[in-house]
C-alpha cells in the first residue's frame, strides 16, 4: 500500500544544506502494522511527512495505494507525542474535528449530526472515554488526552494511521495501557499503521514489521518481521523470544549510531 523508492530529502537549514533521508526505501502492505525505530534525529518524523504528502521528496518516489504522492494524501489520520487537543472544544468536539474537514463527511455533518455523534461516542467508548465526552481536554490526564487524540485520528476511518511517538510523554503503566488500546483498535478496524517510536518494546509488542533506520542521513538498514501470534497479550513482553528481539534491535541501533 505504501512504497518508498530511493527517497532522498534535503532542505536548506540554517547551517547549510541538511540531508534528512538518503536513498530510503520501504514497503508497507495494506493492513500491516509497521514500526520505524532508529537513533534520535535520524529523520523518522520526516518520513512521516513524506508518506502523508506534507512534504515532497527531493529525489525518488513515494507511492500510496499505487499512486504517486503529490500533495496531502487525505486518507491518513495522524497523532503525535503532544495530544494537541483544542482547549476551547470538548473532547467530543475535538474528536469530531476531522469530520468538519474531510470530504465527504464535511458536507454531511450537519444533516447526519446525530449519527456522527453516535459514531464518535462509540469510538470514545472503545478507548474508555465515553463518559468523558463532554469534558474539556485540560480537565483530563495526559493519557486520556492521548486516547482522545487517537480517536480524533481514527474518526474518519482513515485507511492509514500515522503515529509519531504518540506514547513517549506518558508514564510506563499508561503507555502499556495504551498499547493495548491501540492493538485492539487496529484489530477491530484493520487500518494500516506506521508507528515511529524510540521504544523498542513498543515496536515489538505492536508491529508486524520493524524497520530500523540509520543515523542521519537516514535510510532503512534492516527490516524485521515480528511473528508473535495475535492477539498478543501483554505477557508477550516477558517471553525470552521477545527479550531477544529487543536485545538484537538494540544492538543494531547501537551499531548504526557508531557508524
Amino acid at each position: 500500500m505504501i512504497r518508498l523508492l530511493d527517497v532522498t530529502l534535503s532542505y536548506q537549514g540554517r547551517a547549510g544544506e541538511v540531508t534528512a533521508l538518503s536513498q530510503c526505501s520501504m514497503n508497507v502492505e495494506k493492513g500491516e502494522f509497521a514500526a520505524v525505530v532508529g537513533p534520535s534525529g535520524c529523520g523518522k518524523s520526516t518520513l512521516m511527512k513524506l508518506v502523508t504528502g506534507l512534504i515532497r521528496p527531493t529525489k525518488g518516489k513515494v507511492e500510496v495505494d499505487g499512486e504517486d504522492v503529490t500533495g496531502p494524501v487525505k486518507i491518513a489520520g495522524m497523532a503525535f507525542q503532544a495530544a494537541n487537543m483544542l482547549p476551547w472544544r470538548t473532547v467530543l468536539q475535538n474528536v469530531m474535528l476531522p469530520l468538519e474537514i474531510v470530504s465527504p463527511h464535511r458536507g454531511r455533518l450537519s444533516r447526519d449530526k446525530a449519527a456522527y455523534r453516535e459514531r464518535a461516542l462509540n469510538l470514545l467508548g472503545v478507548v474508555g472515554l465515553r463518559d468523558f465526552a463532554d469534558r474539556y481536554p485540560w480537565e483530563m490526564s495526559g493519557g486520556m488526552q492521548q486516547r482522545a487524540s487517537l480517536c480524533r485520528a481514527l474518526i474518519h476511518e482513515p485507511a492509514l494511521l500515522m503515529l509519531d511517538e504518540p506514547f513517549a510523554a506518558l508514564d510506563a503503566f499508561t503507555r502499556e495501557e495504551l498499547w493495548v488500546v491501540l492493538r485492539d483498535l487496529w484489530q477491530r478496524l484493520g487500518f494500516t499503521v506506521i508507528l515511529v517510536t524510540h521504544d523498542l518494546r513498543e515496536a515489538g509488542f505492536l508491529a508486524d514489521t520493524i524497520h530500523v533506520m540509520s543515523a542521519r542521513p537516514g535510510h532503512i538498514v534492516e527490516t524485521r518481521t515480528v511473528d508473535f501470534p495475535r492477539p498478543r497479550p501483554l505477557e508477550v513482553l516477558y517471553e525470552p523470544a521477545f527479550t531477544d528481539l529487543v536485545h538484537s534491535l538494540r544492538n543494531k541501533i547501537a551499531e548504526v549510531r557508531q557508524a
Partner: protein
Amino acid sequence: MKMTAEDLTPVAFTLALFVLWELACVVFRIDSFILPAPTAIFSAMVQYWWPLLRNSFVTLWTTAVGFLLAVAFGIALGLVVGWSRAIYRGLYPVMIGFNSIPKVAVVPILIMWFGIGEIPAILTAFLISFFPIVVNVATGLATTEPELEDVLRALGASKFDIMRKVGIPRTGPYLFGALKVAITLAFVGSVVSETIGANAGLGHLMVQAGSNFQMPLVFAGLMALAIEGILMYAVFAALEKRMVSWAFRSSSSAAA
C-alpha cells in the same frame, strides 16, 4: 455574591492612598495650587459635577468610537498579516515605524484636516489603540502548533479551514488581552487630542481649568478619567472571562 477579603483589598489600597495623600498635603503644607488634597479635589468634583459629567461623556463616546474602529480594523489587518508571511514581512516594518510616531505629533495634522472637534479625538484614539490589536491577533495566528496544522493538512484541510477551525479561535485570548491594553490607550489618545484642540471633553476641561488656575478641578478631571479607564477595563476583563474562559482554566493542560 459574597465579598471576600480579596475583593476588598483594591478598595482598601485606594482609600489608604488617598489618606496618605491628604496627610502629606497637611503635614508638609503643600499649596493646593501645586498639589490639591483629595478633599479639595472631591469638593471640586461635587461643585462642578455637571461640566465634569458632560465632558466625561464626550470623552467616553469619542474614545469608544475610536476604539471600536481600532477593533474592527485591527482584527481585519491582524488576520491578513497573520495569514501570510510575505504580508507580515512587508507590512511589519511600516507598522513599527508608524507606531513609533508619537501620536501627539499627529494631532495638529488631524486638526488641520478635520478642524477642531470630535473627529481628531476619535482618530487619535483609533491610531493609538490600533497597533496592539493587530500585533496580538497576528501573533495568535502565527503561533498555531505546526503539528496540529499537519494533522489538519493531512486530512486535506485548506489554509482557510485551518484558520477557521484553529487559528481564529486560538487568537481569542490574545485579542482580549490586547483589548484591555487598547481601551486604556484609546483614552490617552482622545484626551491628548482634546488638550491640543477641542471644544469639549475632559482634556479640554482640564486645559481650561488649568489656565484659570483651578488646580482642584484639573485633578478632578484626572480622577474622572481614571474612573472611566477602570470601568472600561473592567468591562473588557469581564467580557474576556466570558468569551475565552478556556484560556484561564487550561493552565493545567498537559499539552503545552
